[in-house]
């Protein structure tokens, strides 16, 4: 296949109340990995949705090999060899069909011609050879339902290249992956590059872009900012371009006083993932639960929140033993959990911003006989939106109209209003851009300053080092090490979280 060039020129697209793209530009060749980055709401995903035919009301030109092309439906894009793998892999897969059927879905639907019967042996043969080509070790006869998230993603990549694929868009593919899985994905990406596929790679993890990408395009507020070879830029200069200003110290510092022990967990275990977890946290303290993806952090957080079955162990607050059997009790005891899967578990996308913000603490917004105090709800919501810097036209806006990062801020804001004693944050910065990350860190430290106890679970070890006072390393559902953060390094955390032991 000869090298081909893809250009997008002066792409503009409007949504009600927002101009999502404003004269955006993009240029790339096949046989390269091209990073596309920008803060939340910068328009990366929108630009790629235009390219893949999901948004059709754009203005501007798309040029492939000096020929102007029209992409006005996903079908158009696919026929031109532009394939996309979205971040939400589950929406693109049919769980109760096999891997092979999912990979060959397109052929089963469009490539049948006049034939009425499906030749499964052929389907599985072709699917297996695709999987083999990508070095993916998944049987084509397994049900997609039984796959891990990483495997599902690989199945989608296999589907994308099952037809003519000149350009492959990967929208934040590494966000839910563990380190090993990320390495596997990069192996596949390299393979695609060497077979002359142009890979567009969207990610918030700047580090990994330097590992895998050749070129980089930065966007901000719907505008094109820059296009460089990756070796011409550094992380700092990229961040500067993304934010439009110099990056200050990413982790704010705040004078805090660590007081008495508030929350204590002893020998916590459930019958699934959590095994013997003990830790404590004091008033005004931020502790980290560090560990790789899949280490069991989420399970521990959920268990503390009464969402786990057959829980054993002792949970104490202010010296009193708690008996948490469901999340309602946990909230009553003064525990708050900002869950990892915010869109699924943290927010109501079909409801207004204000309804979302007050949903965890509605009892403080009622007058006599449980009647709602709408005025107070509006005032407090508006304050919180202001404080969090949420980009929203008004507090009456439905959450589904906000960008992902802003929805996450709402999910956190909900608990700030709720006023608990112990806050559990599960990967609070997942999918959040650098600018908003700092807002979130500031909020968390402010909580600690007010004497709250913070449990910060994250696989981003930089954040653990940057924000916590003490940290516990989780490996395989167990606490394997307690560390004083100011005496530790990222390398040390990584060592323990990958199963390293003191000799």
């Amino acid at each position, binding site marked *: 296949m000869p090298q081909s060039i893809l250009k997008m020129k002066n792409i503009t697209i409007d949504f009600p109340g927002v101009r999502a793209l404003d004269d955006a530009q993009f240029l790339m060749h096949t046989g390269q990995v091209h990073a596309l980055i920008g803060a939340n709401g910068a328009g990366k995903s929108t630009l790629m949705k235009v390219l893949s035919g999901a948004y059709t009301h754009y203005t501007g030109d798309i040029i492939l090999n000096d020929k102007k092309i029209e992409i006005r439906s996903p079908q158009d894009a696919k026929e031109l060899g532009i394939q996309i793998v979205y971040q939400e892999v589950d929406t693109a897969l049919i769980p109760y069909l096999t891997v092979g059927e999912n990979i060959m879905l397109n052929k089963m639907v469009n490539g049948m011609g006049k034939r009425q019967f499906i030749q499964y042996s052929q389907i599985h043969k072709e699917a297996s050879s695709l999987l083999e080509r990508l070095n993916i070790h998944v049987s084509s006869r397994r049900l997609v339902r039984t796959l891990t998230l990483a495997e599902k993603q690989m199945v989608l990549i296999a589907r994308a290249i099952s037809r003519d694929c000149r350009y492959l868009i990967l929208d934040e593919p590494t966000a839910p992956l563990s380190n090993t899985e990320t390495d596997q994905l990069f192996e596949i990406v390299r393979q695609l590059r060497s077979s002359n596929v142009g890979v567009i790679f969207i990610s918030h993890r700047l580090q990994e872009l330097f590992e895998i990408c050749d070129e980089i395009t930065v966007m901000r507020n719907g505008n094109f900012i820059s296009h460089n070879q990756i070796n011409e830029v550094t992380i700092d200069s990229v961040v500067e371009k993304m934010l439009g200003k110099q990056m200050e110290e990413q982790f704010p510092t705040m004078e805090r006083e660590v007081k008495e022990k508030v929350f204590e967990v002893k020998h916590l275990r459930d019958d699934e993932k959590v095994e013997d977890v003990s830790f404590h946290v004091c008033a005004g303290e931020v502790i980290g639960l560090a560990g790789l993806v899949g280490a069991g952090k989420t399970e521990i957080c959920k268990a503390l929140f009464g969402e786990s079955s057959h829980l054993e162990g002792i949970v104490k607050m202010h010296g009193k033993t708690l008996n948490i059997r469901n999340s309602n009790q946990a909230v009553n005891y003064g525990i708050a959990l900002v869950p990892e899967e915010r869109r699924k578990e943290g927010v*109501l*996308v079909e409801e207004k911003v204000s309804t979302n913000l007050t949903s965890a603490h509605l009892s403080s917004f009622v007058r006599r006989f449980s009647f709602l105090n709408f005025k107070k709800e509006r005032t407090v919501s508006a304050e919180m939106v202001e404080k969090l810097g949420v*980009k929203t036209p008004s507090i009456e806006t439905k959450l589904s109209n906000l960008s992902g990062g802003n929805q996450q801020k709402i999910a956190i804001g909900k608990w700030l209003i709720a006023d608990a004693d112990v806050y559990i944050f599960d990967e609070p910065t997942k999918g959040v851009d650098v600018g908003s990350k700092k807002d979130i860190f500031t909020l968390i430290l402010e909580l600690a300053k007010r004497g709250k106890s913070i449990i910060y679970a994250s696989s981003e070890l930089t954040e653990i080092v940057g924000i916590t006072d003490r940290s516990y390393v989780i490996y395989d559902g167990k606490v394997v090490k307690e560390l004083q953060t100011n005496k530790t390094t990222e390398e040390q955390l990584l060592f323990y979280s990958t199963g390293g032991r003191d000799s």
Partner: protein
Amino acid sequence: MSASSNTSNSSSSPKQNKQSFDFFQFLYKYGTIITIILLIVIFSIANPAFLQWSNIENILRSISIVTIIAIGLTISLSVNGFDLSIGSVASLANAVVISMFVWYGQSTLIAILVALVAAILVGLLNSFLIVKMRIPDMLLTLATMFVIQGVALTYTRSATISENMIMPDGSYSEGMITDVFSLLGKAPYIIILMLVIVFIVHIFLTYTKHGRYMYVIGGNEEAARLSGIPVNKYKVLAYVLSALLAAIGGIVLASRVMQAEINAGENYLMDAVAAAFIGLSVLGAGKPNALGTFVGAVLIGILANGLVMMSVPYYAMDIVKGGVFALALAVTYYKLK
């Protein structure tokens, strides 16, 4: 970043206001109400008697039972549930309340209370199986629909219960339906009862903490759970209230016809479903709501009444009714797309 984003927002929002009038948005919000007005105009031109007070009273009386049952359904819809058993619960309550009078000679209060208690038991059974056994609500209530229907039939031995009926032992029943009870099904009481129920449930769903919790659960159950809302408790409440209102519908029906026919409540299920779903879009609510359900019931009532006045044969009525329902849903879901 926030400074620049704010300016981009404020500069783009006037653009939104200027943006052309969205026809489907308008239709979504006001379509049902416009349809009602149109129908009233058409019917009153076709037959001036349509607008006479006696006929309006007639319409309101005819929709009151559907409305009461549909309001119960609205509550179950608000937690993203679906109670299909309301028709049979109405049948059961109807049978129980009449039998209390006719077979057992009970007082009005006792008769009504026993019927309500029976309904609460059904609601508890429904919610237990949904919440604890985790059976999908629509399937479960489909199952209980049959069970309750069967219970009602067995209880009445598949016979119509009325005053002076022949008992199995050959004698005539001696119990009488009280005069107070018979008032319940007559205008204006039946209409007042309906309006009071619509009003109370509207206040409950929109202005109280509990109603808000129900909508939160309906919007995202997992998020509601992790927000500390006692999800199961509210689901139980929703299904009990749903059954309770269905029973009130059945009791009012009993008062109106003064007897218990077999499966009398069944016919109300589908009308109630239609009313509640038409109501989703009223004034752009986008979610189940009591006022919308009432408007939906009014639409159905006007349609039925007007068609009768225009001498459309009763057997062709369902064609029109179904057609209007489909139209209302088309408007709702076209917008949602």
